[in-house]
């Protein structure tokens, strides 16, 4: 679907379980439609290829391999390499094999904490350091699974922005549910004015406006997903090393960086820092907003 808003074309579609939007500056409708098609096609390609829910996706094949090695293509290899860097960088806190904890934790706002014994059992199935990844083939122990969901959306946003930068003349802004990137800066004045929904923030007036001239922006966290028991708020950010939520994690972290992936990973790493998220991002010297 595409509509005109002032001098912008706004195209929207659904992918990755959420609304996706592409803003295209100026030009004719047919050009804008082409830009939208490029982005939608790429978003769906990334989703099809890397979704763990999608039968036959590369992640699905890896998770069902039952202890056998799976050979992956170059793009998937780059993502796994990237995940490895993040795992090392975060000293094990960012772990694409931690998704199995979902079986124990349901962040529905209730007070139902899981049985510690269940969490302990699941922890035995986690640990990227135990995966055998040689740059082409990946072998997981039986019972282990990976999930690229923590990187996939930001990656898709940057991929779309990159394709639009190389194939389309008009400046575009790609926005997949608040994770966004620009294909190039607008040819005039202050850049893309972007309203980010503040997770705590009531109606549209509560949006925070920023001007993004280039690069990406991502938000990590969801104020709606938590557990509350005996006055303690358990965030949905789990530390794979303990299997329990990170203590003192902010409700949400937004970061502006060179790309959406860069921003998203810094935001996620900040969440994993828990109480010291502020000092962590302070040291990174990136523009950020933390909501407690």
């Amino acid at each position, binding site marked *: *679907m595409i*509509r*005109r*808003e*002032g001098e912008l074309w706004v195209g929207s579609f659904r992918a990755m379980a959420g609304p996706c939007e592409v803003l295209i500056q100026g030009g004719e409708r047919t050009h804008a439609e082409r830009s939208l098609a490029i982005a939608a096609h790429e978003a769906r390609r990334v989703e099809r290829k890397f979704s763990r829910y999608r039968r036959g996706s590369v992640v699905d094949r890896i998770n069902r391999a039952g202890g056998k090695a799976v050979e992956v293509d170059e793009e998937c290899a*780059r*993502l796994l*390499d*990237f995940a490895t*860097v*993040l795992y090392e*960088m975060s000293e094990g806190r960012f772990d694409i094999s931690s998704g199995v904890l979902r079986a124990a934790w349901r962040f529905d706002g209730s007070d139902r904490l899981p049985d510690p014994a269940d969490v302990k059992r699941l922890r035995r199935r986690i640990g990227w350091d135990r995966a055998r990844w040689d740059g082409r083939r990946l072998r997981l122990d039986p019972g282990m699974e990976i999930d690229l969901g923590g990187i996939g959306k930001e*990656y898709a946003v*940057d*991929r779309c*922005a*990159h394709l639009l930068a190389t194939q389309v003349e008009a400046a575009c802004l790609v926005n997949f549910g608040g994770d966004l990137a*620009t294909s190039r*800066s607008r040819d*005039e*004045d*202050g*850049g893309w*004015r972007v309203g980010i929904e*503040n*997770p*705590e*923030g*009531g*109606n*549209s*007036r*509560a*949006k*925070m*406006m*920023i*001007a993004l*001239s*280039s*690069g990406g*922006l991502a938000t990590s966290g969801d*104020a709606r997903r938590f557990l509350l028991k005996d006055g303690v708020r358990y965030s949905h950010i789990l530390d794979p090393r303990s299997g329990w939520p990170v203590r003192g994690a902010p409700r949400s972290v937004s970061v*502006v*960086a*060179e*790309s959406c*992936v*860069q921003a998203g*990973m*810094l935001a996620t*790493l900040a969440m994993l820092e828990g109480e010291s998220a502020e000092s*962590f991002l302070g*040291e*990174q*010297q*990136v*523009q950020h*907003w933390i*909501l407690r």
Partner: protein
Amino acid sequence: MQLDQQQRPHQQQELDSGTGRRGRLAASLLAATCTLLGSVPGPALAAEESKSWEFDTAVLYYSEKDRVSDGSAHVLAQRALKDGGLLRFKATVDALSGASPNGALPGLDAQTFTSPSGNDSYTTPAGEIPLDPTFHDTRLALSANWVRPLGRMMDLDLGASFSSEFDYTHAGLSAALTRDLKGRNTTLSAAFAFSADSVNPQGGVPRPFSLMPPPGEGEGEGEEEEALLFLGGKDDDGGGGSGSESKTVVDALFGVTHVFGPSSIGQLNYSFSRSSGYLNDPYKILSVLEPGSGAPLPGPEGISTYLYESRPDTRTRHSLFTAYKQQLGRDILDLSYRFTTDDWGIDSHTVDLRYRLRMKRRWYLQPHLRYYTQTAADFYRLYLVDGIGLPMHATADFRLAEFDAFTYGAKIGWRLRPDAEWSVRLEYYTQSGVSPPPAAPGLPAGDALLATLDALIVQFGYRF
């Protein structure tokens, strides 16, 4: 990264100084990100939080033909808060001057009028609508609002307002709650406001139906008693006007806003307002005529008899407002209708139509058309008649008469940057009164000119 060295020396310094794992992290991550994204070069980081304050400023000139003119300056400043809230401050200064009808009838002879204190007087030539030229006032109005989110779906807006002019002060408090329903397509709102105002004209507030004093007399209590006798009497405890009077207003509003689709939005509000206290205009009077002849009743010291107006001391108003906004291509249509009814007998209808036309190169043109019509207050009359008893209430204020009004105009705007805009608005307001019939045979009929008014409105605005 080369990029870092060029564009972010501050970060590079930190990297060089090697402050441990975390200090190096962003740079190593950037390298990994570049590898992941293949040929995508890391573009320059150049996002900024939009300026913390936004301003909307305007100067407005309102000029009624041969009557009142008003120059005003408005500044609105607002700032989004980190918690999703909003702070908003508004200031208005205006200077009013000119003349406004005082309520008396045009006469066959020149007429002399005085201010409530009796110290200022003015004379209207024969045959002209008596205008009170002593309108000179400067008003300062300030308001502050604090919007804060309550959870994800609700906002609370708390406000305070204050205004002060020579003879009037206002202080008010307000609270509004808005709540988004699931999907955020529908917003419910409830708002309450309370205000306490006081009127203190120089020389005191004239008591309703008291006699306008002759020039140089101050408040004449003796003449007042005399006037009451003339008119056949209304029981009253006598006594002059007091120094100041007060008024309180309670408002409540309930509304719903609904988004029909990506390009249309509708709104429906019901509001209720109750004023109580001193609701008169201390400068408005009525002529008193002799029964039969219809000639002005002679008063003290050779001037005619004029009584100050008397309005009820409560007013309850209900209002229904509906608006619809639709985007049509690059243009925006904005249509609204308001109906009000009150226990003074005034019913009004307002239809307002604006169409914003997007032009080439950041220009827009917005024609505006507004129609307003109201019925007269039950106690509106052109004059009082001696000897037939004083009514409970009476006013000759043309603003409470029956009239229709049209506003024609247009606004032209030029967008300098996405967040800065110039605009000029030019509007013409024309009001025409409906002549009321004579109060009795032989008495004058209404002169529709009394409520006839033309005004020009010019506004320059700059938002940034």
